């Protein structure tokens, strides 16, 4: 019985958190003409049955170095797919300026998330814009900080209640290791710090009952 309840809660929590889904996909462009295939996993940190862990939300992505300063990417969110929700993501990264010693590089990554369910074919469209500052450390490794921004167009939600958050912003910090042709990233996000997280079915871990901390891992291979 206890196991069944745990499964129940886990599924509820995972499903309710599908949108908090990945690392900052591309913090800087990949080399021109190269492909990058990646797997992202991680999510908001929650407590279920006294156990604290980040949700295992996953996505697969493919990126291509279009120009020296521009890479394009697409992704399929695999956890969402398990629930019959097709979530596709297209976008890319534009490097505004490169890092110079202690001055960080700066990039802008616009994405478009198209979601639709296979049950009633309800469709949602969410633009996302990531802003990243990053520093080259050594051997191609980078450390980065930035903001993930989701835009909710709806002004009303169920039963005519007002949708109070139209810009959902989440600061993040991460590190990317680059052994050989790999890019391995570890990222921490503070999801929706302006939103109170108390009195919810999901027990998120935020700061002073606001937002949710998230932990994400990403493994990508260049070829």
């Amino acid at each position, binding site marked *: 019985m206890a196991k069944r309840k745990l499964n129940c809660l886990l599924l509820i929590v995972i499903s309710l958190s599908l949108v908090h889904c990945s690392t900052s996909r591309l913090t800087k462009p990949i080399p021109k003409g190269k492909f990058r295939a990646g797997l992202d996993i991680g999510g908001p940190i929650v407590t279920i049955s006294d156990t604290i862990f980040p949700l295992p939300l996953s996505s697969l992505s493919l990126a291509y170095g279009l120009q020296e300063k521009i890479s394009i990417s697409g992704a399929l969110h695999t956890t969402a797919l398990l629930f019959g*929700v097709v979530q596709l993501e297209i976008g890319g990264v534009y490097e505004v300026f490169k890092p110079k010693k202690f001055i960080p590089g700066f990039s802008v990554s616009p994405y478009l998330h198209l979601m639709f369910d296979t049950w009633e074919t*309800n469709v949602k469209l969410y633009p996302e814009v990531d802003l990243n500052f990053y520093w080259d450390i050594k051997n191609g490794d980078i450390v980065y900080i930035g903001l993930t921004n989701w835009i909710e167009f709806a002004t009303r*939600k169920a039963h005519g209640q007002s949708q109070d958050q139209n810009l959902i912003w989440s600061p993040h910090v991460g590190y990317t290791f680059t052994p050989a042709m790999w890019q391995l990233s570890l990222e921490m996000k503070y999801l929706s710090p302006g939103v109170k997280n108390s*009195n919810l079915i999901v027990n998120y871990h935020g700061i002073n009952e606001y937002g949710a901390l998230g932990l994400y891992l990403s493994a990508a291979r260049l070829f």
Partner: protein
Amino acid sequence: MKKVYILITCFAMILIFTNCFRLDDFLYNEDNTIKSYKLDNYKGDVDFKLAASYDISSTYISQFTLQSRFEGKTKKIYAVYIGDKTKITTDTVILYCHGNKDHMDFYWPRAKLLANMNGPMDGTTGYGVLMIDYQGYGLSQGTPNEEALYNDVNAAMKWLKSQGLTNNRLIMYGFSMGTAPATELTANPKAMNPRILILEAPFASAEVMVQDSSVLALPGSFFTNLKIDNAKEIRKVTQPFLWLHGKKDDFLRISTHGEVVYKNYGGNSSLAIRVAGAGHSNLPEVFGFQNYLTTIENFILSN
């Protein structure tokens, strides 16, 4: 080319597992492992315990089964009636639709409390309480599902009608998940037409649960096929309506669930009781058992 095949294979495998999960089958938190109902002797967790002064003589506790039909099949569901069954022809009966957890033993203190409405239950208080276990809960046959909830509560109303209860003496009470069948069958009466609807900690809809937790205005269909929508059904309710909700409800927020249901009520005789300090499970205790009973009885008597 080999890489392309690998990518295509991976994608195909993902698609195979598409639609594996929906929340629907996992939302129900039933326990069907018990061998019998223990009621006062139940040793498992309960939301609150009552003093001995609320105890009820076994003379006024009747356990029995009902038949509930679903998808052409008849299922045996279990029920407990607190009160004098021979006086259902004259007593006012509260049909208590319990929440999502375990089975009737868990909700026994709640039903017992209501049975003490007009003083200790001695067969002369003028009240009785009927509680059932929905399909899949406790000893009741079947598996939980939305339609079964409605059918099971309707089966309870059929039984009450067969015992001589009339519409003007039927009070429909729903707690948490039980607010779904309570609201549905008050809005769209079947075997009987309840005179009064009482909802404790109602949820607005599955969609609100989704949106509360995700921040975004996501459609409920992204996660569940459940059609439970109290916020919509309550518009059809014109019977007097009493709403009780804890201000600190950490499961179904009072602002996004209870207030919406209350606001959408379609009638013109309602009372809202927002209980400071109460959470989802302890409203009667925090409100005070006697306050709780007096509030409900006064509402019944004044309507």
